[in-house]
């Protein structure tokens, strides 16, 4: 098979048949929040929109486990891998569908919660396009929708502000460990106090409301709106994690 002189390799990633295809699809909602009692079942409808494409769209629906990566994004694992997984409890109806161009179609996600379930459970439900051709392979797109399940009446919120640090010239890192059993989305304020203890700046902590999975630590980075003049300051973080208590931490810093 190996030719000494002219050994051609035909590397085909997408057949020419599909050159002119315009592909676009959306899903709504992009996050599915469900509150279900243990032993009960509930569902939610997700709309897949193929109205901007000029080709039919084949979509496969499946759920995977979710975990954090250090870059703030996620890795997706086989269903049932993580302790907070509900991927195996999800039934998509239909699991595969063909949507004509210009049309939308609904997928029903049904979730049956086992009797012994407690706290929060999570999965990423993917809506993946493809196959796009009869032979050969090509580009697939998938959109993930987070499924956020709370087992009614069993949630337990507890959190620890594990660390606060200042990274010159303007970055503040706050590490929060979620000791509870549901995903939490902390919010709050960061204050900059001068040497006399007077507040000179204040800005929001975690404005996009990023979450922390149960039994997980997440690093949050905030940036000072402007560099501080030379002097002594204190950074004070006041963080609301969904209970009547705030997490509070202070860090003295010196700017030279």
């Amino acid at each position, binding site marked *: 098979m190996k030719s000494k002189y002219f050994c051609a*390799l035909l*590397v085909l990633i997408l057949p020419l048949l599909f050159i002119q295809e315009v*592909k676009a699809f959306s899903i*709504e909602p*992009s996050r599915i929040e469900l509150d279900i009692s243990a032993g009960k079942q509930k569902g939610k409808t997700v709309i897949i929109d193929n109205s901007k494409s000029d080709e039919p769209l084949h979509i496969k629906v499946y759920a995977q486990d979710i975990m954090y990566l250090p870059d703030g994004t*996620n890795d997706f694992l086989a269903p049932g891998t993580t302790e907070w997984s509900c991927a195996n409890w999800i039934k998509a109806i239909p699991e595969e569908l063909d949507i004509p161009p210009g049309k939308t179609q609904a997928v029903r996600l049904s979730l049956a919660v086992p009797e012994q379930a407690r706290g929060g459970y999570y999965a990423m439900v993917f809506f993946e396009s493809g196959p796009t051709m009869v032979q050969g392979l090509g580009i*697939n797109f998938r959109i993930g929708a987070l499924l956020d399940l709370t087992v009614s009446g069993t949630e337990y919120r507890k959190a620890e502000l594990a660390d606060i640090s200042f990274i010159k010239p303007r970055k503040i890192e706050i590490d929060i460990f979620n000791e509870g059993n549901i995903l939490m989305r902390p919010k709050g304020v960061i204050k900059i106090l001068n040497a006399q203890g007077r507040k000179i700046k204040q800005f929001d902590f975690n404005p996009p409301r990023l979450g922390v999975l149960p039994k997980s630590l997440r690093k949050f980075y905030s940036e000072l709106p402007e560099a501080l003049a030379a002097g002594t300051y204190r950074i004070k973080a006041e963080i609301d994690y969904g209970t009547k208590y705030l997490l509070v931490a202070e860090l003295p810093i010196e700017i030279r």
Partner: protein
Amino acid sequence: MKKVFFVLILIFGLNSAAHGAIEISTDHRALFFGVMQLGEEKELADSGTYHNQISCSSTNGKPWYLKIGLLQPLTSGSESIPVENFKWQLVWTDGLGMRVSDPHQFKEFSIFADLVYTSAADEASSNPVNFQFKYYLKIPQAQISGVYNTIIRFTLTEIL
């Protein structure tokens, strides 16, 4: 009773809308390296500076990210081209968020998805962010001839 029913529907509708939609689209130009010789290198950039454009948008007010990966190495039967020989480059984006790769360098594909871009805080209000990619392939000197295929997968999801 009718009034109560109407109010409940209205609340449900607002709640659904608050979650918003998330969309991905492409010009879907074919990725076709054609016939290549052993040891040959080729860039795929049929539009001059780029080959295909991906657009992402969201209306949910949450930051999102885009990843790129291969489902498997370029494969022909039992033969495959090492994954490091196939590369991608994000040559341009109009996004204001964080791009991960160097716009002047190709990056090797991975079967684990690589992060391409994380949106800025204000890029979740329906305006699309556009990404232009080009691709590179080098055929190893000892590669067995064949028709090699793979699937590039783009993953779009909001940050948890």
